[in-house]
């Protein structure tokens, strides 16, 4: 049913469809019927992930593992006993990744999200509890809370793919062309002295999820842009493998217009 909803959405959201086509052209080089197939695939995969997010959020964390096909790289978390930043992106089921990692680390996890425009939707997809707390980045002072959480050895989950249109963005190469990415996660990591752990939760063909945890990135003061560049390279590799799970329905290279 979720896939059918996705196909319907693809037909009724022309602006988003056009942005996805443009993006997929750059990501994959596809055209013609293959490009159409991939474009519809973004909508259907998004519908699947969203549907799973709503349904799994109503289950206890212990039952989330039934949705998993595989987990790679979780051993990277073992030696990390201090605070850490879990870095993800709008790829696959990113919020499910946050819940799963919270369970793995056994530490309180603060997931930073944009203020949801549709509050009625928010209550379905973002449920505090079982070690996970969602914090909106609408207030500048929220970063003080994140510093304190990291000092306590807790986990902060952030998305590293959506520029804010502020001084905190950096232009970095993404699929061969500069795109703005947020530097905030890297500045927070270097200031507090904690690692960033890239993590993704990708939808597999059998409708289960593959969690991938990459090697932690360490950031030294003044070298935040280099760390962000390394992150974008990791992200690019994941998106190249799963282009229909790149859920940014706008032009990532020019998100604020030309």
């Amino acid at each position, binding site marked *: 049913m979720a896939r059918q909803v996705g196909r319907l959405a693809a037909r009724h959201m022309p602006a988003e469809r056009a942005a996805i086509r443009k993006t997929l052209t750059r990501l994959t080089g596809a055209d013609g019927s293959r490009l159409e197939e991939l474009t519809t695939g973004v909508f259907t995969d998004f519908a699947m992930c969203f549907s799973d997010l709503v349904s799994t959020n109503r289950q206890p964390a212990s039952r989330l593992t039934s949705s998993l096909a595989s987990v790679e790289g979780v051993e990277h978390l073992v030696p990390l006993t201090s605070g850490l930043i879990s870095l993800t992106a709008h790829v696959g089921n990113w919020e499910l990744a946050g819940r799963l990692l919270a369970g793995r680390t056994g530490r309180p996890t603060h997931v930073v999200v944009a203020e949801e425009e549709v509050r009625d939707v928010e209550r379905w997809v973002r449920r505090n509890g079982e070690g996970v707390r969602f914090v909106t*980045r609408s*207030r*500048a*002072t*929220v*970063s*003080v*809370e*994140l*510093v*304190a959480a990291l*000092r*306590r050895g807790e986990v902060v989950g952030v998305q590293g793919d959506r520029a804010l249109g*502020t*001084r*905190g963005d950096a232009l970095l190469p993404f699929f061969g062309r500069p795109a703005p990415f947020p*530097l*905030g996660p890297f*500045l*927070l990591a270097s*200031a*507090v002295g904690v690692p960033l752990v890239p993590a993704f939760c990708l939808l597999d063909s059998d409708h289960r999820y593959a969690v991938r945890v990459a090697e932690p990135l360490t950031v030294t003061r003044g070298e935040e842009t280099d760390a962000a560049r390394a992150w974008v390279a990791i992200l690019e590799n994941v998106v190249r493998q799963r282009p229909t799970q790149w859920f940014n329905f706008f032009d990532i290279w020019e998100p604020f217009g030309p």
Partner: protein
Amino acid sequence: MEPEKVLAELKGIMVERLKFDPRRMSELTCDTVLPKGMDGSLGLDSLDFIEMSIAIEERFGFVIDETQGLEPHFESLGALTEYITSRMDGR
């Protein structure tokens, strides 16, 4: 540490770490609002608050790790001065 001394140290952080023009410091009072998006505020963004938190830890020698109620302390210079003074006093 006296509140006046704390306020002076905070102004030093504004200049040295947040790169504010030193000439603006004489305008700042305890009523000065810090976060951007509020009337008459200094316009500090989330990156400024990260830098300020770390600078406060280094300058005043305590760790900011409270589990709740931190944000109101960073809404004005007066609130921040009071927070730092109380932490220094061990209250």
